[in-house]
């Protein structure tokens, strides 16, 4: 593996259609500086994000996974993000027990107008992941 300074981590961000995807969009339009590490996967609601999607991202080589959605109370589908939160509790506990560094998994609520917040979030995560290096679950032959 290349030196950590050159190495660009791969971060998978699950974004909901109505809020956090808009946030990512706003970040781009606002020309906030952010690294090219993120792969955004748009879902209609963060409630759609099953823990197995997160596992899958890690097993395919993601160095960090972000679960993002609308702020609590703002869900386009009444309470989808509350379900996300509940599932995330289990997922977080499990990832912790598995021994994967906690710096690799995040839950964050970002609205469509919070472009700067999105960009800062990505920057923070990227910096943290660069510090701890590639994920131990990354398959052979995947950079």
């Amino acid at each position, binding site marked *: 593996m290349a030196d950590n300074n050159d190495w660009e981590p791969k971060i998978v961000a699950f974004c909901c259609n109505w809020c956090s995807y808009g946030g990512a969009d706003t970040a781009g339009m606002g020309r906030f500086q952010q690294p090219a590490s993120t792969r955004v996967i748009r879902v209609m609601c963060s409630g759609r994000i099953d823990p*197995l999607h997160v596992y899958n991202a890690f097993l395919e080589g993601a160095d960090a996974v972000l679960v993002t959605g609308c702020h609590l109370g703002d869900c386009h589908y009444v309470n989808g993000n509350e379900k996300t939160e509940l599932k995330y509790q289990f997922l977080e506990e499990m990832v912790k027990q598995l*021994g994967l560094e906690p710096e690799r998994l995040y839950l964050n609520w970002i609205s469509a107008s919070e472009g700067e917040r999105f960009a800062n979030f990505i920057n923070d995560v990227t910096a943290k992941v660069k510090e701890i290096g590639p994920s131990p679950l990354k*398959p052979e032959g995947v950079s």
Partner: protein
Amino acid sequence: MVEVGDKLVGYATDDEVRKRGASGGLVTAVLAAALEKGMVESVVVLKHIDEYEAVPIITDDVEEVLASTGSMHSVPVNLAKYAVDRKVAMPGKPCDIKAVIEQSKRNMIDLDNTYLVGLNCGGTMPPVLTKQMLIEMYDIDPEDVVGEDIEKGKLIYRTKDGNEKAISIEELEEAGFGRRKNCQYCQLKIPTNSDLACGNWGVIGDLAGSATFCEVMNEKGKKLIENAVEAGRIEVAPASDKAIAIREKVNGVMVKMGETTQEKVFTQMPDEERLPYYREALADCIDCGGCKLACPVCSCGDDAKCTLFHSLGDNYKMSMFHLVRLLHLSDSCIGCGQCTDVCPVDIPITRIQMSFSIPVQTKLNYKPGMNADEKPPFFEVMIK
């Protein structure tokens, strides 16, 4: 009249049943009475094959119920799945009953149609290892064994020639024999989650060995006892204070042992060692799916998230099958040990699952298999 909460001592009125049963034949008689009086359509019982093997059968024949075996320490099956979709009465160890209750939460079993006669359980043993233990530790030919008992922390075997030999369970377990690993840290010894909690703890004096102590846990338990008394199959009398105290004491000692072992078994590994450990432990998995098939809590069927999102052709560092199962059972694993028993490559899968489940269940203060009205926390996703 019998009331919920009553603690009774009783036995089968039929001498033959009383003699053959493990302790007074009360359980057999209660099950037989439930069947003959039409409370249920069938009964799940163990059919005796030899001292180390019995197979669960579902029967609507009272004679077959009466001929069924007493409790056997080296037959570690879980009976929950035999109650699925039936109007049935069944005996069960605490883990059988836990599994039935978890199945009922998943709408696989209707508890109103299921009568659960719980049996006190200090633990069960793997049959092949038990035979090896008899040869190595007891110097007894496994074929010569006619009976077994656990008393005062000792495992006793009786042989054809009328002799018996006792060795302390602690000593056996230190030598790698004795109870299954999960039984060693199990902390439910009296099945208070059943309808009728039966066992020989607290049976004292003249009745020792020929009567059963039972606690009526709920209305269904009351019905079971009343029905069996009415049918003339059992006689019961209130248990003495001394009997109740002794039962409590035995239970207390066993539960304490379980707690101590759990602390010892589940010491947290350092963060950086856990992932390599789990990967290494699961690396020999041959994807047989036995752990899923044997799991008495699982209810998804053949096509489940754990199987459909997993492929033999995956190039992953950990198996999706195991990751999904570890998560899905984190709130509901009852620690029955069936998965470890059937694993063809001897992965300690119960221990691995429990190392994920214990923190989650503790954090959420959820005890699976105890209360049918308490839904698994993960289910809240669907319910809200």
